[in-house]
């Protein structure tokens, strides 16, 4: 099972990873975007961490929704609505739950991904965060089918995200500011796919051994 504390530990770990990688994410965004991805995500997740301590009851759904609404209110850019929608929708799928089975986590993740796809309108191969999240979902589903432990399943999920992230390098962007570059966007790793990989790698790190 994935507990309420596990979920909060995951969000905190990701917030720390965003801070640690703030300059790197911004550098990736300088190459093909507008040089603010790390800065914006760090501002948002700093606000999120400030909210986590004040949460009233161990409700995973409510906690994830708070993460999402805080991101929408503080990040701006495209990342604010996209990551905000991801967490809000994910939270909406597990309202009132204090612990999640791997299957429930997978379903919640898919609901969050659905929110990202709906408002971002990106398709696989557009060189966006979706290119990390979809292979991650597929890897998680395959791991569940294999009867993997939480730790193994999330590690495979993070590995899927990593492969998807690396696979964005040769792609030509078709969404977001990078799309304005056309062919010149090829050869650069997508910043959104990179932060999405960090999101799932953070989960794999804090849930190791489960």
């Amino acid at each position, binding site marked *: 099972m994935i507990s309420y504390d596990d979920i909060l530990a995951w969000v905190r770990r990701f917030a720390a990873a965003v801070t640690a990688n703030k300059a790197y994410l911004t550098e990736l965004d300088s190459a093909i975007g507008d040089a*603010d991805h790390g800065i914006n995500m760090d501002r948002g997740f700093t606000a999120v961490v400030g909210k986590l301590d004040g949460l009233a009851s161990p409700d995973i759904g409510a906690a994830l929704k708070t993460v999402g609404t805080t991101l929408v209110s503080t990040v701006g850019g495209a990342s604010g609505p996209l990551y905000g929608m991801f967490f809000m929708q994910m939270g909406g799928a597990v309202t009132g739950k204090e612990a999640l089975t791997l299957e429930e986590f997978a379903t919640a993740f898919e609901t969050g991904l659905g929110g990202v796809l709906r408002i971002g309108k990106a398709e696989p191969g557009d060189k966006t965060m979706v290119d990390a999240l979809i292979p991650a979902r597929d890897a998680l589903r395959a791991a569940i089918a294999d009867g993997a432990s939480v730790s193994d399943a999330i590690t495979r999920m993070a590995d899927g995200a990593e492969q998807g992230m690396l696979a964005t390098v040769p792609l030509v962007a078709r969404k977001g500011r990078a799309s304005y570059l056309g062919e010149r966007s090829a050869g650069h790793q997508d910043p959104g796919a990179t932060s999405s990989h960090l999101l799932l790698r953070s989960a794999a790190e804090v849930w190791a051994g489960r």
Partner: protein
Amino acid sequence: MKKLINAPESVVDDELAGVAAAHADLVRVIEPNVVVRADAPKKGKVGVISGGGSGHEPMHGGFVGMGMLDAACPGAVFTSPVPDQMLAATKAVDGGAGVLHIVKNYTGDIMNFELAAEMARAEGIEVTSVVIADDVAVKDSLYTAGRRGVGGTVLAEKIVGAAAEAGADLATVTALCQKVQDNVRSMGMALTSCTVPAAGKPTFELGDDEMEIGIGIHGEPGRTRMKLASAAEITAMLATPILDDLPFKAGDKVLAFVNGMGGTPLIELYVIFNELKKILDARGITIARNLIGNYITSLEMAGCSITLLRLDDELTKHWDAPVHTPGLRWGR
């Protein structure tokens, strides 16, 4: 990085405090970072708001006032504002006649404005949106996020603001904004990069003898990088794609807007305007109105953009109408 700032995190807040202190007769700044016309809301008047990342001053906050915007929502530098800001702005300027959102075509701006419009409608405020997408440097196809909103936004805000000031209803104001969008085209170039305060180093590198043609207003690299050319050649490189796109034809009257990116002196902008006049004269196109200066900037980037708006009597009338904002003032 050499900038006149206290700290990268406080640039926008410090600037807004300065704006509020300097222009208290025209605007006030409310939480969460919204510049609102001092006399808003005006009963029965359509509200016109816009917003976008900071770093493009005087756009948008400098265009709040009589005859232009009712409110502006500045985000972090080069980052779309958040929905809370547009919702607060919409509520602050709603005089019961509805509110128009003028949105520049960037993925983040579109999403954040959409969320805000949904929230405002849920609170019973009638909201319409027009997306400005005038940058011909971007191939407008299924394979991009579409054309960027650039210089045409300034002209739209002035013209639409005048109509709202004159008492036009929401449908008329919205249609007028769309008319500006349908008749305006722009393209820009950079001689140097710019530095986002929080990033601390230039967004891109450009050699001493190089320039970037087709640059966006956020330091997004353009479409081609080449050796520096003369003002006449650069003007032709920007004007030709603009003219061919609409297309502008002999006999057209236009508003010619030569905009500085923030780090280019007026002396150079007038050199560009002179070259532009020659090109338009040769094509039989009349410059009926002009605007020359730094109005939609990209921090300290050196470079310029050219915007052409095909005028008719309605657009000309609203362009000429009085305006009194921190960044644009005439007629009173």
